[in-house]
């Protein structure tokens, strides 16, 4: 049950993030949308690795081997994904800052120098 709830939560977050990305003209808020999108994905990922009744995969004693643990792989992936997400967010923000300095606005539809 926990897994399903998490999965649905994740999907909802992804959709909310998408909504934010697609409807906000403000670049900062688009970036916020992206970070929500990311969080949603992370939740989905973890729900995949969830094992009902499993504990965190930290084996303090070798004798604990064989107990029920949750899947460590998605956790490792999420760890990586979170860091990547941070990188991308920082990166987008830097872009945003520079774009603002160049044009004095953060409306996405004002940056149409290149088209067609």
């Amino acid at each position: 049950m926990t897994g399903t709830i998490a999965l649905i939560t994740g999907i909802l977050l992804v959709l909310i993030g998408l909504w934010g990305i697609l409807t906000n003209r403000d670049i900062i808020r688009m970036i916020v949308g992206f970070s929500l999108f990311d969080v949603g994905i992370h939740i989905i990922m973890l729900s995949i690795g969830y094992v009902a009744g499993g504990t965190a995969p930290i084996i303090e004693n070798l004798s604990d081997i064989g107990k029920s643990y949750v899947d460590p792989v998605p956790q490792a992936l999420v760890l990586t994904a979170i860091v990547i997400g941070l990188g991308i967010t920082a990166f987008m923000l830097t872009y945003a800052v520079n774009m603002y300095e160049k044009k004095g606005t953060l409306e996405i539809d004002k940056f149409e120098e290149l088209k067609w």
Partner: protein
Amino acid sequence: MVKKVFILLMIILTGLILWSFVPGYESRTALPEVSAHYVEKGPEELGAANIVTAVVVTYRGLDTLGEVTILFAASAVVGLLIHLNKNENKRRREGSEILRTGTALLFPLILLFGIYVFINGHLTPGGGFQGGAIIASAVVLQVLAYPNRKIGHGLLSVIESLSGFTYVLLGAAGVFLTVNGFLDNRILPLGEYGSLLSAGLIPVIYTLVGLKVGSELSSVVISLNGESEEEQL
């Protein structure tokens, strides 16, 4: 308005795509083969209690190297853009007295905590990334408290470079010392299970990662704060 409705429709449809996965989903009761291997053989093979760390640093070490690279690239881009768009720095209002005092007190503590987190990554939750982020938070505090103090990229950059370089070299050492052992942690003895100096290279790597991530994130923060290396210490 029509556009928003349309977007909503599209998002609902996207939701439907993702939803198609939900009916077939139920929480696992058993681990997939590979994960089971990690959980069952991991402690013996790598000597790390925290299996997630074992996976992150060794089994999927290449991902982690990539991850570090992404942060590195991101900070390089931030650096590049800031470098290209130097603009004059205005003096900013200093942080409040409380903040400054608190910072003076907390800064070393937070640093220490960060180091603790990454050194113990193979035993307890946490590791290089979390530790690095914590170190960066310390820098954030510093920047908030003393916005006009010049904290240069110089030192950070050297730390970052050296730790990254060492990380790669240690990884490559595995290729020399063992067969197909890029990023193999077992080039150092595994040590006693559960102790600080165990799990071979894992704590070393996590330390390097922590230093690197910490310095990178710090320099991102500093860059965004408007500092550029020309005015560094």
